[in-house]
């Protein structure tokens, strides 16, 4: 399985490139170093945005939730103990906030229809993709996939985003959503099968065009 090294992926949080690890940064922040918090924001804001956006399907709401996530981290910095990875902690906060938002939507019976928003103009396509036709196909595929992800039940949606979009290991997902490892694996497989069922037409179309 190939994983793109893009901002969809969660930061590895290690100090392999001479950078301080997430755990070091949060420790520094707990001791009052505000710059460490800024570094954590810089490191996590885009991956978290991708995670929440894929979960909710609304970019503006996703950014609000990421803001709230960082605010919670700021306010409750002393609750973090180095028994878990920082990434696990912050993704748990973001996931819980996203689920709360989903429940709020259900209560208010608001069905989010994906609409063009000013913020979406900020979407940056990969530089290497210079073929306009390919670019259009990519945008269409993205929207179709987002629609299929949004149609999944939340428990499947969460694991498939964490695993396939964000690139977390099964163990990390198990810690984030507090569900046994076996259940995580089973949910990932079932989510993939559902997506395959929903998106099968995409591949049929490709075959038709090729023929």
């Amino acid at each position, binding site marked *: 399985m190939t994983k793109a090294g*893009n901002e969809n992926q969660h930061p590895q949080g290690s100090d392999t490139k001479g950078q301080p690890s997430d755990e070091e940064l949060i420790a520094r922040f707990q001791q009052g170093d505000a710059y460490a918090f800024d570094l954590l924001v810089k490191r996590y804001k*885009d991956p978290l*945005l*991708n995670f929440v956006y*894929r979960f909710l399907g609304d970019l503006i709401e996703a950014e609000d939730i990421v*803001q709230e996530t960082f605010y919670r981290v700021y306010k409750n910095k002393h609750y973090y103990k180095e028994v878990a990875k920082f990434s696990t902690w912050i993704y748990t906060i973001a996931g819980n906030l996203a689920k709360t938002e989903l429940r709020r939507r259900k209560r208010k019976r608001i069905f989010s229809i994906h609409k063009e928003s000013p913020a979406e103009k900020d979407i940056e*396509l990969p530089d290497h993709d210079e073929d306009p036709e390919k670019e259009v196909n990519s945008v269409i595929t993205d929207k179709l996939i987002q629609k299929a992800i949004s149609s999944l039940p939340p428990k499947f949606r969460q694991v498939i985003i964490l695993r396939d979009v964000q690139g977390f290991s099964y163990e990390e997902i198990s810690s984030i959503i507090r569900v046994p490892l076996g259940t995580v694996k089973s949910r990932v497989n079932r989510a993939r099968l559902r997506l395959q069922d929903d998106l099968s037409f995409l591949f049929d179309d490709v075959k038709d065009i090729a023929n």
Partner: protein
Amino acid sequence: MGDCDRMKKHITDYLEHTLNPSTQKEFEQVLGKDDHLKKITSEVGRITNILGNLQSLRCSDSFNVKLREKILLNRKLPEKDPVKKYVLSISFAAIFILILVILNPFSSEETANSPLTPEASMQLSPEKNKQNINQVDNNNTGESLGGRDIKTLEEAQVHSDSTKDKSVPKLKHVDQKEIQESQP
């Protein structure tokens, strides 16, 4: 088709090379002869790749400014003091209990209306009943009747007048003449 359904649950493990050798062998055998399983496995692999290469979104340029504003704004708001919160909740609980005690649903009036027969209720709490009768005495006469015999007579009188309860064992044998004499 049965084999295909059985093997579907192993697709992820197969694609991630985490199947144990015997299951992998079995999976590949079914895969070799079942086109449907082959199609599903191939498509699941492709979808997994697509998900890993989805366009990445970036936060708006104003993200950091907004976050800083949010933090500063919430810093200015007075935080709720947890001690104050506990004191308040304890006070509310105390007031609630006090109200319950004042409006006691198991008061003497309620007991009188209870499904128990008067005899039964007297048997259950003779002391309480005696106290009630004394209370009625005091209300009626406005003075304490110190003597034991007089008190018993008064008790009998009041009780016979108010509740018509002639089943109180202690008062059954009081002479009616004595009662009449004691009345002004």
